[in-house]
């Protein structure tokens, strides 16, 4: 089903780490701290400027992997990883894309479950990697059957 699509990727999409969005995001996770929001306070930190919360890259547009065919409903988020080279700075422009890194199936009590691994990359304006995010999406038996029709 998805196995023959491993390695397919989306095109790069330009995103901006917008301060108003960082503020709303930080508030929504109960973490509205000066290090994310306040330029003056953040100037005294090791970063010298506001940074984004560690899970903020979920807000970025990573484009679409051609013909991936994942349904909009019924998927379960199984695992999530972020790996950073450096913090993400508020106000910076980044370029994002993703790839279907792996797909495998496991037989369990409730039938055959599919596991899709999406590898996402966030690069800065000079093309340097800032952050990699990996997401494991679980596709249950019912959704899997629907997809292979």
């Amino acid at each position, binding site marked *: 089903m998805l196995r023959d699509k491993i390695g397919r990727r989306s095109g790069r999409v330009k995103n901006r780490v917008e301060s108003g969005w960082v503020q709303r995001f930080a508030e929504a996770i109960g973490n509205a701290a000066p290090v994310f929001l306040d330029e003056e306070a953040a100037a005294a*930190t*090791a*970063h010298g400027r506001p940074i984004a919360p560690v899970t903020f890259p979920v807000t970025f547009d990573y484009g679409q992997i051609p013909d991936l065919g994942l349904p909009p409903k019924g998927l379960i988020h199984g*695992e999530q990883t972020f790996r950073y080279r450096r913090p993400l700075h508020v106000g910076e422009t980044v370029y994002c894309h993703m790839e279907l890194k792996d797909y495998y199936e496991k037989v369990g009590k409730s039938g055959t479950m599919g596991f899709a691994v999406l590898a996402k990359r966030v690069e800065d304006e000079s093309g340097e990697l800032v952050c990699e995010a990996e997401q494991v999406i679980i596709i249950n038996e019912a959704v899997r059957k629907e997809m292979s029709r």
Partner: protein
Amino acid sequence: MKTLAEWKAGEALEPVVIGPVTRLDLIRYAGASGDFNPIHTIDEEARLAGLPGIIAHGMWTMGNLSRLFTPFLDSAFIKEYSVRFQGMVLLGDRITLQAVLENRAGRTFTFAVTAVNQSDKTVLKGHLVLEWLREPPASE
């Protein structure tokens, strides 16, 4: 704040309890994250998906847990953060967010992190790697 030399493996951060989880928490997170999967906000959709009720976004819990480390971000950054979502978070749940220093190698500290509900069921489990960029400022 502790100096880096004072930290030892096995030390726990002060846990934080969040909740009871409200629908508004999840509506706010949906808007702020752009994840509008309706199982997180609309009862009918959650039922149709075979769930006992609307459930929190896993990323809402993961995001909340990261607040345990915010006091260190003046002098450090989160280099790695990975979790497995092990259980559902439902409306009304109270979630305890915990972190224990597992090991340290120079300026790189690895914490085991967990989120546990009011019935002591683990809903999220993982690791977070903090890299210190400088010695934390001494505080009162």
